[in-house]
């Protein structure tokens, strides 16, 4: 997988920097990193579905909501420990993903997106009613106790950083290997031309459903970890905007690239904070308008990347890497198609 020494060097540097990050940075920055790591898991999930299998989905937020609510119910009402609640939430997400994926057997492209959009609202409606019944009031969420083992409670930002790092790294390795396996290649075949994939012997319905199931399981994992991390679950968090933000992450990062989703997730998560920082530096005051600017930045990122850099940040990275790889020559090697 890593044929060139420079690639190993890059990986080693990245790992070292990521591991040492808490030593140099404060709690605020680590908090942002933790949010990014949760987003990374969700973004990888939607990238497997949309980037690899080519199934446009606006249901990511509802899958995350399923994961978060499952966790809240199991941890808060039934007092389950996290090592039961998290896998159970993933299973719940996978089951819902399977159901939402069923229409994909009939529709393609934009029609599927609209169907998942409708599913999103149906799921959120059910959860809204549930929250109104279970929560202290209709608008207040369900609180989630911090994950604990043997009396040790995970509450500090630094502890969370390493825990989420392990989870994100596991998801990253799992997805990288999955993408290279028969399953990943079957997905790419379905994305590129489903009829051709079927002719080549790919069981299209089965792999489409598998993509939905795995994607939803990862989204539910992100939702579950997010529930533990923020310690409160409200249905208002899981809007259509969130689903679009996750779509934005993979557009910005690079469709059909696991590593790209990491870039995209970090980029989109940090973008609002970067905008705020930039506006704080300006001499005049903006008031609540800043929220609008933060959102507009995400919309602008979607449009900008789709128009100017459709393959996302990962393509920019690839260009830079290829430049150094081929230096002093100017031409890049011709890569076999599908090697992403």
């Amino acid at each position, binding site marked *: 997988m890593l044929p060139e020494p420079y690639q190993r060097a890059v990986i080693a540097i990245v790992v070292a920097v990521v591991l040492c990050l808490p030593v140099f940075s404060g709690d605020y920055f680590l908090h942002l990193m933790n949010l990014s790591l949760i987003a990374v898991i969700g973004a990888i999930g939607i990238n497997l579905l949309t980037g690899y299998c080519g199934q446009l989905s606006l249901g990511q937020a509802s899958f995350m909501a399923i994961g978060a609510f499952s966790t809240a119910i199991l941890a808060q009402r039934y007092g389950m420990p996290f090592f039961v609640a998290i896998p159970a939430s993933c299973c719940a997400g996978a089951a819902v993903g399977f159901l939402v994926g069923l229409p994909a057997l009939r529709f393609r492209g*934009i029609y599927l997106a609209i169907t998942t959009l*409708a599913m999103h609202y*149906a799921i959120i409606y059910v959860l809204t009613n549930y929250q109104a019944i279970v929560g202290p009031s209709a608008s207040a969420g369900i609180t989630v106790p911090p994950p604990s083992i043997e009396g040790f409670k995970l509450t500090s930002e630094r502890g969370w950083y390493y825990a989420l790092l392990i989870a994100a790294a596991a998801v990253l390795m799992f997805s990288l290997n999955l993408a290279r396996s028969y399953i990943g290649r079957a997905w790419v075949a379905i994305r590129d031309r489903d009829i051709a994939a079927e002719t080549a012997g790919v069981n299209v319905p089965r792999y489409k459903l598998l993509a939905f199931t795995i994607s939803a399981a990862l989204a539910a994992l992100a939702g579950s970890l997010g529930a533990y991390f923020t310690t409160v679950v409200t249905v208002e968090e899981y809007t259509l905007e969130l689903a679009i933000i996750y779509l*934005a992450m993979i557009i910005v990062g690079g469709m059909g690239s696991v590593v790209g989703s990491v870039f995209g997730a970090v980029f989109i998560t940090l973008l609002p904070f970067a905008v705020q920082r930039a506006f704080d530096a300006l001499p005049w005051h903006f008031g609540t308008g800043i929220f609008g600017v933060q959102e507009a930045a995400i*919309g602008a990122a979607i449009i900008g990347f*789709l128009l100017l850099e459709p393959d996302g940040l990962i393509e920019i990275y690839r260009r830079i890497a290829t430049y150094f790889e081929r230096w002093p020559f100017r031409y890049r090697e011709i890569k076999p198609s599908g090697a992403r």
Partner: protein
Amino acid sequence: MELLVSILALGSTYALLAAGIVIIYKASRVINFAHGELAIVGAYVFHSAGFLTGTTLTALSLFTAIVVAATASALFGVVIYFALMRRLLGRPTFVAAMVTIGLAIILKAAIVVIWNSRSVGIPIGRQALYNFAGGGRISWIDVISVLTCAAAFAALAIFFQLTRLGRQFRGAAENPLLAAQRQVNINLILAIAWSVAVFSAALAGVLFGSRSMLSPQSTIIGLSGLTAALVGGLDSLRGAAIGGLLVAAATYLTARLISPTLAETVPFLILLIVMSWRPWGLFGTVEEINRV
């Protein structure tokens, strides 16, 4: 009776929204996810133009508002086409749909930045035109909504059926390449499509704003319009009108009879039913390509 009037008035708003989505879809096979945002921004522009000089709407300021909103929305449609959509010709249509999602986010943010998310209403035609014995009433705006909508659909039907440009439009929608080879100016056609669509969206937004308060959250009506368009069939104007009425009737009756929270979800339940039963809608062309 009052129920029927309300459904007709709300239905005409949805039908106008659906008409815009249908026009864009017919011309370029792109589904516009920014339609609700375009409608509400149009309504905000109308409001700002109307209340530019004073705190009450006079005949003059109403006239100014209409002119400003109409010109701005028609121009904005052309700008959207040339700035964004033209660059996406030849790319998969879902890419263009995602660009409209990006546009939707920016427009919604614009309401927050420019109008500070202020909740505004457009007080026109609130006076009762006719009072029923049971306490219900028909206001001017109900009648205006229905008439405007009918006029807009009539104008569109005449445009498509009778004018030379309308025939070229239909040709371009059917087969862009062949149409282009027969000297049809595709850029002009698509720019007109966007212009008319954004204009009708703004009109729908103003009608919506005259009945209920406007806020960034009202952009959700775009999804009702999308549902209406899908119910009727994405490439059928007649379907848009009937779909709009159906969605309005279902939403309104649910809000009245069952619960208002369920009513917000009703368009999407209709959507699911339609998608599983007749994905091409009531009057749409059966598109084999969208089915596996």
